[in-house]
């Protein structure tokens, strides 16, 4: 019986490995040739202006999203948990909303409470200046202002592997 059980467990593990790897999604992809991040100036929903170039010397996480995008919503809680670990470690997190106004985003935050800045790219000019074709897409900008990593789709942002990758950019 133990032999059968161990066989079941083996097959179950084989079947579950792909599911687990999808669920965790902790891979960031290095950007080839690390092009310079296009500078932008955007208001957040509290009407504070954010200029990317002002954050030179820090690691900047730029997440393109929208309230109506289901995978964008999935990753917001893990982004907030990651932000709590990163905010005092020379890292900036900017969630750039596409096409929506402050009222819509503010209402949305009643259900998805986050403390990092929510910027508004109302006319989609900023997202179109980046190599982005789908939401969510996230870029990690290194302290010299170059695109270091990219992720298309949801990630588990507080996964230790991702946190380590981000913090290593500060060295």
């Amino acid at each position, binding site marked *: 019986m133990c032999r059968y059980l161990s066989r*079941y467990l083996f097959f179950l593990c084989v079947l579950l490995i792909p599911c687990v790897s999808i669920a965790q999604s902790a891979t960031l992809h290095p950007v080839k040739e690390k092009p310079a991040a296009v500078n932008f100036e955007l208001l957040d929903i509290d009407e504070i202006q954010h200029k990317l170039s002002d954050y030179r010397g820090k690691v900047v996480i730029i997440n393109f999203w929208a309230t109506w995008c289901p995978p964008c919503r999935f990753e917001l809680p893990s982004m907030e948990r990651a932000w709590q670990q990163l905010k005092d470690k020379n890292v900036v997190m900017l969630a750039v909303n596409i096409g929506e106004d402050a009222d819509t985003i503010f209402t949305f935050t009643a259900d998805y409470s986050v403390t990092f800045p929510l910027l508004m790219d*109302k006319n*989609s000019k900023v997202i179109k200046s980046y190599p982005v074709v789908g939401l969510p897409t996230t870029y990690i900008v290194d302290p010299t202002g170059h695109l270091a990593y990219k992720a298309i789709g949801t990630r588990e942002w507080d996964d230790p592997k991702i946190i380590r990758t981000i913090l290593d950019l500060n060295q």
Partner: protein
Amino acid sequence: MARNFTRYNALILSAIFLASNSSAKVITGIDEQAQLPYWELIKPNLSLRIVQRLPDQTRAYFLGRGFSKSDSDFIASHCFFQTIFRNTSTSTEPHKLEYDLTQWQIKYQKKNHSLLVRKNWLKIWEQRNVQSAQKIAFEWSLLPTKQEYLPEDYNWGMSTYPLPHGAKFDLDIIWYIDGKKYQTIIPDIQCAKDIELSPVEE
């Protein structure tokens, strides 16, 4: 107990056999979130799931994005699917997955049709004088026309088909793994039917 165990053994082995064989098959069923039919293609390094969207659901979604009633009705007159395209390769054995929706073909009533992609809709919105905010919402709600996924990358987005509600069709899809072309047909996909409420007799 031994007999039960053997039966159990056979059942589990059958499930494993089906699961391993499913790499070459299209799985259909009811999507657990949408509670609507889906068709899912699972191939090495790729999964593609398309889930029916009800016309009313699509109408309500775009009304919520600020489209007028006539534009929302126009959108809802088309066949929409929620589409989830994923690179299922892993960082330990990475592969690049690419697709281009303009290469895909809809086979309906012995004719080939192209999907409606972002540039097609943009032309429609220009003709209908749709405002910029609505055009932006529509564009980003669609599955990207072309995309390149590395391990664990994926998108959700709507794919749109110039077919009537309830139409059954085959979808001839093309994708590339590390630059190598692959092609298959997902048969018997069905656009959602429109729901017409009729008065209930008491």
